[in-house]
């Protein structure tokens, strides 16, 4: 359920990007997801399929770059990958602390099939690249 709203935001952000690029069809979305966000792959994929219907992202593949949480152990002065359900340092057993790594949630890039490859259905979409009006 929680993933629905973020996928909605993702689709609307990328729709705006496609419009900025002069239209086209997105075939691949590379999304980077940190473990600490708590978002599940299955849910992200499920809602992406559902919410991209009827948009320029319909049918696109969602490639997830999952990032494991990196914790810092102040005692060992070292970073370590978080073990499930624990913040403890595997070396000394002391308490580790969360770092920025693992909190990511951003779009790395998209693959876009240009509008000209498709039927020129909408007059507004055939303008040259970079000239499309900004829609928000």
């Amino acid at each position, binding site marked *: 359920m929680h993933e629905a709203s*973020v996928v909605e*935001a993702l689709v609307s952000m990328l729709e705006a990007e496609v419009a900025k690029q002069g239209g086209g069809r997105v075939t691949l979305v590379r999304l980077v997801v940190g473990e600490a966000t708590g978002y599940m792959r299955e849910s992200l994929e499920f809602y992406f399929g559902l919410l991209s219907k009827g948009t320029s992202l319909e049918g696109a593949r969602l490639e997830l770059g999952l990032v494991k949480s990196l914790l810092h152990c102040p005692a060992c002065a070292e970073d370590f990958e978080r073990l499930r359900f624990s*913040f403890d340092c595997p070396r000394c057993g002391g308490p580790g602390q*969360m770092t920025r790594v693992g909190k990511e949630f*951003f779009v790395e890039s998209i693959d*876009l099939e240009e509008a000209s490859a498709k039927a020129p259905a909408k007059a507004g979409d055939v303008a040259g690249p970079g000239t499309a009006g900004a829609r928000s």
Partner: protein
Amino acid sequence: MATIEIKRAVYEANDARAAAIHEGLRARDIFTVNILGSPGAGKTSLIARLGALIQASPEPRPLAVIEGDVASDLDTRALRALGIEAYQIETGGDCHLNAPMIEGILARMRVPDGAWLFIENIGNLVCPAEFVIGEDLKLVVASAAEGSDKPYKYPAAFARSAACVLTKLDIAAAVGFDEAFFRRGLQGAAPASPLFPVDGRNGAGAPELLAWLGELRRASQSGI
């Protein structure tokens, strides 16, 4: 086929609108606290306790509350019955508040200059952590009844909050709450986050929390 680099956070559009809300509130000396927590953690009781302290202080600042719920206005009515100016956002299913919802309600309510603005988010430890809504800071409320593992299971909610409020400690023994384990988890998820035990029934601990908020408020003002 072209690969287009995006490198942008999914929350960007929301974040920009939240920044504008924050700027507007700050310009009017309104300090905004976004309160997160599970359903039943004690968020509304905490607001009621803080509200009573603010109203009873020798130089009371005005106070306004925005209540976010999936459905119903029970919390808003409960706060109004205590003489607290409260407004309801009913999300109709959405599991968190976002910046456009706050824009909408701020246009319909009157928050006096210099006020405290408490926003009670939807009872949920996942999405509310990811959305900024114009606040100066987030507070996460956890209760003993939820169990001691919450910082381990929902680290983002704790990591993104400036402090953690722990409620219902009076029933800790009955529900097997392990406070040391909880504190260790909080330390891992949010090393800089202080823990404020607050008893929603008698208000114990609320003055310390309000004093801490007041200090942060003063510090943020002098930082302009």
